[in-house]
């Protein structure tokens, strides 16, 4: 349906009056009471859902209708289609005050699942989350007959613990050795699960199966014998010698679905729920236990559970365990490593049954992850499966990370696996995203993995962004990785900071999605060594976008769609990109590491001009002011005197040298001027130290027009901070030199203003110039006659009709003249000491400041009224 058609339907739904709705409710009530209302009821409920969801305001349904919706939802005979719609309607209305629906009304898994979706939407005002959790547990513990029960309820529990971690009674998942609790029970009594199902089912999470299976498995990732704890105990290659033939905790994990075992077909045949032949994603027959990466023509109920359980495993391990078991501080780890009984050694022996359930769960999860790592190396036949392999790999590494935090003895067998994994993934650009959790694992497990973590971080910060920056998801994940890993990067932070030119490529290409991420990340990238270069790089960000665009146009196509704007044909730019004359500049702009110095890119601005108007460059330019503010927020924490003056000089220089994107200069100028004043406020001595540069900048008329905000800021800073009060080194000569330069400038500006009809510069600029001159004069009284003369000329500026600007200039000139008549007051007003900032001066009416201000304003007011007409 076209968007106008949908818009019309939505409008109709919104415009339905209360009266019509209540009639419609009556009709629905009648339909729901009939036994076989079928399609008509479905259609009516669809419409009701649309009416409710089309508006954000509440619609009132008649009570009988509300009641029937709830009854139908809980009915055991209603068609599933109707029940789904009833649940959707009640959820759409949530939160509903006085909802009669409770978990007690749901007597089977299917209904409870639907009721839960409604109750969990209520916002937990009546502790619905806990109630849903308890009922789901009860239903699961009631050992329902064979069927999809657990499969429907486990996601409910998963949602419950994620909404409210720790809400389930402690021990309900993992009781300490007792025969109670969900997982324990499922493990103990698996009569409802097909015993001969070949595959791992829920029970393995808590307790291994009891059917030993011979194995002939290779574990390519576990090369050394001491890291083969996962080997099936009855496996002939088991390193620990002949294993006990009886029940083993891990036997179920190593059950072989087909072909290898002596009697697999018997087991298959006796299953009530026969699975198809299980294969790997590459088409070969599976020789190890079933996982989410095993495929089959037909999936059994336990295989479906297996998929579900792996999907939920991280939530369970994180939130389902009793508090305190989930977080092991790194500092405590060494102690634990020494003292804890190794889960692995225990798990690989027959003693596994004696382990507490949490540890059995972890041992099982560990095995599963190992198998996933092995399976993810196979060449998938279908594209969807190859995507799934990557997702599984990420999940397995996240799980291993979690397991190693919870149980440090897993760390030693895990590290070699991850090293092998790194070797496999490192060179493959398609696997870049799966490297991120591996890197995170290596980083968070400290010294044990220091060498590898440094290597993988280097790879992630250099070639990955340089080559793969156009991928939006990779860009987001990599930046998120940097942002979230700041606190664990350690020596990696030393790698991250100089890699900013590479990270900025991601930002330059995906500025809308990544700007807010960089606002958080940038302050951590700023340090004394990188600050100036980073500032230049930020100002050149739109130019970088344009250069990346050219780089992509000249590289072989990697996707079906071009990633750039094909309507633009920047032929001259492309030629320039190859031109040896510009090569060094492009190489510098596209560098992957901080160079330690900066090159002036002005020649590139001209070359890349044709790309300045393209949408991506424009979007990036819009983000720069925000990024500059984020950058400067970090400056006070890292900058010393020398760095501040370098930054101030960079601001002065760059305000006249920016890539000419429409509106870019104006917006950046505003930020630069604010930040320059900010730097001066932080360190007033800057003005004295940089007096020559500031004078050079302010002394030219051209600056007034093209960089007005910056010019105003410089002039204002001179008036504010060029005084011995801020820096003893300030001399009368400096003040005089500034005064003379600005005096000449003001004269020039106002004269041209007199002669030329369109105003040459803004009245703000004139008033700032006047004020600064007066401030300087108040500090060096020889200058007072000169400034008074200048001001008196401005007081007599001719006024045009409706010329409010000139009025403002004249008023300010009069005020300043009057103040200068009392030099001591003028000095106090224009150069108040630091004590003027203390609150006492503002609160206490008897202190000098309010008094002085009152006197001054009286004087100023009186004299203003005497202005010549």
């Amino acid at each position, binding site marked *: 349906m076209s968007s106008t058609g949908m818009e019309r339907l939505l409008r109709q739904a919104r415009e339905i009056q209360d009266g019509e709705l209540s009639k419609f409710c009556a009709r629905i009530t009648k339909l729901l009471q009939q036994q076989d209302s079928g399609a008509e009821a479905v259609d009516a409920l*669809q419409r009701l859902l649309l009416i409710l969801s089309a508006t954000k305001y509440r619609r009132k349904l008649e009570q009988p209708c509300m009641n029937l919706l709830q009854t139908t939802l809980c009915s055991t005979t209603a068609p599933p*289609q109707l029940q789904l719609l009833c649940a959707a309607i009640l959820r759409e209305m949530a939160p509903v005050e006085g909802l009669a629906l409770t978990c007690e009304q749901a007597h089977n898994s299917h209904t409870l699942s639907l009721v839960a979706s409604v109750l969990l939407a209520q916002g937990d005002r009546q502790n619905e989350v806990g109630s849903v959790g308890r009922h789901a547990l009860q239903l699961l513990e009631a050992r329902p007959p064979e069927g999809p029960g657990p499969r429907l309820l486990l996601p409910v529990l998963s949602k419950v613990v994620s909404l409210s971690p720790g809400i389930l009674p402690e021990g309900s998942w993992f009781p300490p050795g007792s025969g109670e609790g969900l997982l324990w029970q499922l493990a103990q009594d698996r009569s409802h699960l097909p015993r001969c199902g070949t595959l791992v089912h829920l029970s393995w999470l808590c307790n291994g199966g009891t059917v030993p299976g011979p194995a002939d498995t290779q574990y390519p990732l576990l090369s050394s014998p001491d890291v083969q704890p996962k080997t099936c105990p009855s496996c002939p290659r088991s390193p620990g010698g002949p294993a006990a033939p009886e029940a083993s905790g891990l036997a179920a994990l190593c059950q072989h679905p087909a072909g290898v075992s002596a009697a697999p077909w018997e087991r298959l045949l006796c299953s009530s729920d026969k699975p198809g032949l299980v294969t790997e994603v590459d088409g070969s027959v599976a020789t190890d236990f079933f996982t989410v990466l095993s495929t089959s023509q037909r999936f059994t109920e336990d295989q479906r559970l297996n998929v579900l359980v792996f999907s939920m495993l991280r939530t369970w391990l994180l939130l389902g365990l009793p508090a305190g078991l989930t977080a092991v501080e790194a500092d405590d780890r060494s102690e634990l490593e020494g003292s804890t009984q190794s889960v692995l050694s225990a798990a690989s022996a027959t003693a596994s049954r004696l382990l507490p359930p949490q540890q059995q769960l972890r041992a099982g999860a560990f095995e599963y992850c190992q198998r996933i790592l092995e399976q993810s190396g196979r060449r998938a036949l279908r594209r969807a499966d190859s995507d799934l392999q990557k997702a599984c790999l990420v999940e397995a590494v996240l799980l291993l990370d979690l397991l190693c935090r919870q149980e440090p003895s897993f760390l030693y067998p895990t590290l070699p696996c991850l090293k092998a994994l790194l070797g496999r993934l490192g060179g493959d650009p398609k696997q870049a995203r799966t490297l991120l959790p591996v890197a995170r694992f290596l980083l968070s497990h400290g010294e044990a993995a220091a060498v590898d973590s440094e290597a993988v971080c280097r790879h992630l910060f250099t070639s990955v962004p340089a080559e793969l920056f156009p991928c939006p998801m990779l860009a987001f994940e990599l930046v998120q990785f940097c942002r979230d890993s700041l606190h664990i990067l350690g020596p990696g932070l030393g790698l991250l900071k100089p890699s900013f030119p590479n990270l900025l490529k991601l930002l330059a290409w995906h500025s*809308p*999605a990544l700007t807010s991420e960089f606002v958080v990340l940038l302050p951590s990238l700023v340090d004394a060594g990188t600050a100036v270069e980073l500032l230049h790089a930020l100002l050149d960000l739109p130019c970088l976008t344009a250069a990346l665009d050219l780089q992509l146009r000249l590289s072989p196509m990697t996707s079906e769609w071009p990633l750039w704007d094909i309507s633009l044909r920047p032929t001259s730019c492309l030629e320039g990109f190859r031109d040896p004359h510009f090569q060094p500049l492009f190489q510098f702009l596209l560098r992957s590491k901080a160079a330690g110095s900066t090159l002036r890119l002005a020649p590139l601005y001209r070359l890349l001009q044709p790309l300045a108007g393209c949408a991506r460059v424009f979007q990036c330019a819009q983000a720069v002011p925000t990024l500059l503010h984020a950058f400067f927020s970090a400056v006070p924490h890292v900058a010393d005197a020398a760095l501040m003056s370098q930054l101030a000089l960079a601001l002065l220089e760059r305000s006249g040298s920016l890539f000419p994107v429409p509106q870019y200069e104006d917006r950046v100028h505003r930020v630069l001027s604010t930040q320059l004043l900010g730097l001066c406020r932080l360190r007033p001595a800057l003005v004295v130290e940089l007096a020559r540069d500031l004078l050079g900048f302010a002394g030219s008329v051209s600056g007034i027009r093209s960089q007005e905000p910056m010019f105003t800021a410089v002039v204002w800073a001179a008036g504010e901070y060029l005084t011995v009060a801020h820096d003893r080194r300030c001399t009368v000569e400096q003040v005089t030199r500034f005064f003379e330069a600005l005096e000449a400038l003001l004269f020039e500006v106002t004269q041209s203003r007199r002669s030329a009809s369109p105003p040459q510069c803004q009245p703000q600029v004139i008033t700032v110039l006047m004020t600064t001159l007066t401030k300087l004069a108040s500090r060096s009284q020889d200058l007072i006659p000169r400034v008074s003369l200048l001001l008196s000329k401005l007081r007599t500026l001719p006024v045009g009709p409706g010329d409010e600007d000139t009025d403002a200039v004249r008023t300010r000139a009069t005020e300043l003249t009057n103040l200068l008549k009392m030099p001591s007051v003028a000095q106090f007003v224009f150069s108040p000491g630091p004590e003027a900032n203390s609150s006492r001066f503002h609160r206490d009416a008897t202190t000098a400041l309010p008094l002085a201000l009152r006197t001054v304003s009286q004087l100023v007011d009186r004299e203003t009224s005497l202005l010549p007409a």
Partner: protein
Amino acid sequence: MRPPATSPCLGAMVHAFLIHTLRAPNDKDAGFCRVLYSCVFGAEKSPDDPRPNGAERDRLLRKEQILAVARQVESMCQLQQQASGRSSVDLQPPSSSDEPMSLHDAPHGAFRLAAGDPFQEPRTVVWLGMFSLGFALVLDAHENLLLAESTLRLLARLLSDHLRLLAPGTSLLLRADRIEAILTRFLPHGQLLFLNDQFVQGLEKELSTAWPL
């Protein structure tokens, strides 16, 4: 002092799924961004609000939250389309609906929502544009994005196949039951599932039996 070891991975589920309209960039006549379907899997805890009509305000807030996500997805998608120079024509379905859809080249992306804006918890949004429809998953901040991305593609593909979204004259507005049926199977209670291709086919067969086209 390090932060608690588990802090970066807390929460690993989908908070909401939504479908909304995507207007072509610069199309001033296309009305507003409309949410066509949304499903929140377990609401965030409601604030203790003693004033009357607290529930009503709560619902209003939730609707606004979902709309805020939809608008942001729309603008992200528009900006991405503009940046790659794709015209609004690409937002229209192909003239013949027999053409196989390649969702791998559809505009897509992810962005983060800070805590409090608009949800209480920080969230990550993964989105996908398919012609004039936007699909988005609002995730807990540290969900497995590779899985979320492929799940979103799968949902978009299933919805377009089973609701015949591309055929003229069909509307998803009056077919919520079918959307619900797809979600309960492929995203039960917001749980992302690791489904391999064969498994998806099995579930799809089951879906087609229960909800014939």
